[in-house]
């Protein structure tokens, strides 16, 4: 992933500019909070914008912003990260429906709570069996029904196993939504909730989202490019989600790193609805020897 810098210097430069800007913005904020006791709300601070201009902004207008990372451009995003085959393992024995993954995902993809990418479903296989929580995201299938049916190639499978949507290509026919047996896809029915984000569009973040197009869980490729884990993995308090590379045969939940093959072998890993032949890249470990008792109330809490 290090050789990215030589490949896409423009994007890197943009990121550096942007992070400079955010540092200055934070500096301005702290300055403002110190000087606010002097009641100098009309005081101005000099800041550098992302394109390198110096501007003066009233202190009352300055807000702290988070460091925004950007994925690759629509054209580059089709290639995938070389030499990788990403894979996810979800340990159903550890999930207690804390929903931190959903919150983190919603925050980083600018989603409203009524239509998240991740869902934690209450599952009960039959009347006698015990209910359990099943975090569900896009399975990034190796034989993806959604990619097969797309009339314009807006959704595609990358070499690193990830299935992405190009919102600048999508015509909004929603055939992929009908084709996905796992209901993984959501549609931007109305205007984006974030308003106008002034960043270049990237399929790797699905930001800024575009009205009339399809979106879904993307395994956070912009994080993977920085050698970081997807937001749902790092936000989980119970280490439910393991993420890694099939070629390296390693997965990690942020705390422990284990061999993928060993984990699947020892804990009898399986894929949801294998009989459909979609070949998902998300594995599940059965809900045995649970860390937590199943509690319904957690669902109502949020």
């Amino acid at each position, binding site marked *: 992933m290090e050789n990215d810098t030589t490949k896409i210097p423009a994007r890197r430069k943009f990121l550096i500019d942007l992070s400079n800007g955010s540092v200055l913005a934070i500096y301005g904020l702290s300055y403002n909070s110190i000087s606010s006791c002097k009641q100098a709300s009309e005081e101005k601070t000099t800041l550098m914008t992302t394109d390198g201009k110096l501007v003066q902004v009233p202190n009352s207008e300055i807000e702290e912003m988070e460091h925004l990372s950007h994925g690759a451009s629509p054209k580059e995003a089709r290639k995938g990260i070389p030499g990788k085959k990403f894979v996810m393992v979800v340990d159903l024995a550890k999930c207690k429906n804390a929903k931190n993954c959903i919150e983190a995902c919603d925050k980083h993809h600018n989603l409203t709570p009524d239509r998240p990418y991740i869902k934690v479903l*209450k599952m009960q296989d039959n009347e006698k069996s015990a209910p359990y929580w099943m975090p569900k995201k896009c399975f990034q299938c190796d034989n993806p029904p959604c990619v097969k049916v797309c*009339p314009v190639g807006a959704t595609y499978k990358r070499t690193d196993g990830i299935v992405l949507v190009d919102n600048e290509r999508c015509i909004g026919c929603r055939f992929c939504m*009908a084709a996905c047996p796992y209901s993984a896809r959501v549609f931007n029915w109305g205007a984006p909730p974030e308003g106008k984000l002034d960043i270049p569009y990237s399929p790797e973040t699905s930001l800024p989202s575009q009205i009339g197009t399809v979106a879904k869980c993307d395994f956070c490729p912009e994080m993977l490019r920085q050698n970081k884990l997807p937001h749902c993995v790092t936000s989980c308090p119970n280490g439910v989600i393991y993420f890694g590379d099939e070629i390296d045969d390693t997965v990690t939940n942020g705390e422990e790193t284990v061999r993928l093959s060993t984990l699947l072998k020892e804990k009898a890993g399986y894929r949801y609805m294998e009989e459909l032949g979609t070949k998902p890249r998300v594995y599940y470990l059965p809900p045995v020897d649970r860390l937590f008792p199943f509690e319904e109330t957690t669902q109502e809490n949020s």
Partner: protein
Amino acid sequence: MSKSNIELQKFRTKRGKRLLTHLISTSLQYKLWIAFLLLLIVLGLIGYYRQLRYGLVVTAMRDYTSWGIYISNFVFFVAISLVGSLFSSILKLNKNLWARPLTRISEIIAVAAIICAAVIIIVDMGRPDRIFYVITHLRIQSPIIWDVIIISTYLVISILLLYISLLPDIALCRDRLTEIPKWKKTLYRITAINWHNHPKQIAMLQKVNKILAIAILPVAFAIHTVTSWLFATTWRPGWDSTNLGPYFVSGAFMAGAAVIIVAMYFVRKHLKLSKYITNIHFDKMGKLLVLLSLVYLYFNINEYLGPAFKMVGVEGEHITELFVGNYAPMYWFVQLGGLILPIIFLMFNRFRKPLPILIISIFVVLGAWFKRFLIVIPSLQHPYLPIQGVDESYLHYNPTWEEWAITISSFAWLLLIITVLIKLFPVIPIKKYKQGSETIFKQNIF
């Protein structure tokens, strides 16, 4: 104005007078009808303006019910467009002479319906501004692309069939109609493309007509089969079926025949054509409708018996929802009122008279529309994974006024295209040519 025109116009025969009068005179009823259709169209345009402005969020479609009445309406329009091939191909090639006077009206309905189908699918798109991506970025493995190709092919063949068989009649209008406005004269002059009833022209026309009549048949079957594949290529309950192609095609012929009966009734009444569209036609159409309904009934039983017997997982949930659940009233209305009762009634002579058969056919058409609603929407509401953790509104589907306005206005468009075409061109073929080795032109028919 129209009264005087009709008095001034001289007709050579009674036949000519009867068949051409409606091209010259415009009744108040006609104007009111057009105004009514335009009003519906304006309402639909308001709905569509709102949809363009705010996005598909103005509809009741959401992430689970991601296709709604636009798609079911699309399937309905594709279905009734098949009727063109029924008359100009199946009945014609089988030498059913009684069906001749109905050929043109069926071709007009086919062209209007396929145009409306193409338009309504654009209305359903989230990004209609990117419509040309289906050409510039097309991926041939997508069933949507197959549908785009086959629909445009069918549209071209349907227009050719209608237009080529119209040529002698347009020439006749050009030559004989004197009391018409100038633009109409120009229209006839241009569209007649120098047709002069030359034996060579006639021979060529008959040849082309025959080729088209044969060519349209596989295309007509393909158009609705491919439309069924939009559904059959997915894993949804009710769609994941090998029966879907013939099920759609047979349903389409039934709906198309019923639409023809409704159209026949009103054309006959308003254009005063009871000499040409006779009670015998209604009787024959009634029998044909029974036959087509029986075929559809057979595929219906096939579609539901297997899953209902096994009741596997979501497929079982889907069947329960249709048979005894939320959709049961609509389902049983469609199956009884739109299929079984019409078959029983139409087996009796007295129900194959114009008025009773009109009412029965309206039920068949309504049943056909709601049947497509039942094919599209409930299937989407039974995914493999339970619907949880989403907004309450995502669980149901009750179309909004914008959706209804757009859907109703698509019907207004359909009727407007049909009405205008009937107003401009003779609805019953006037010129008659004798078939045979030597083509004889029947002179001076009016």
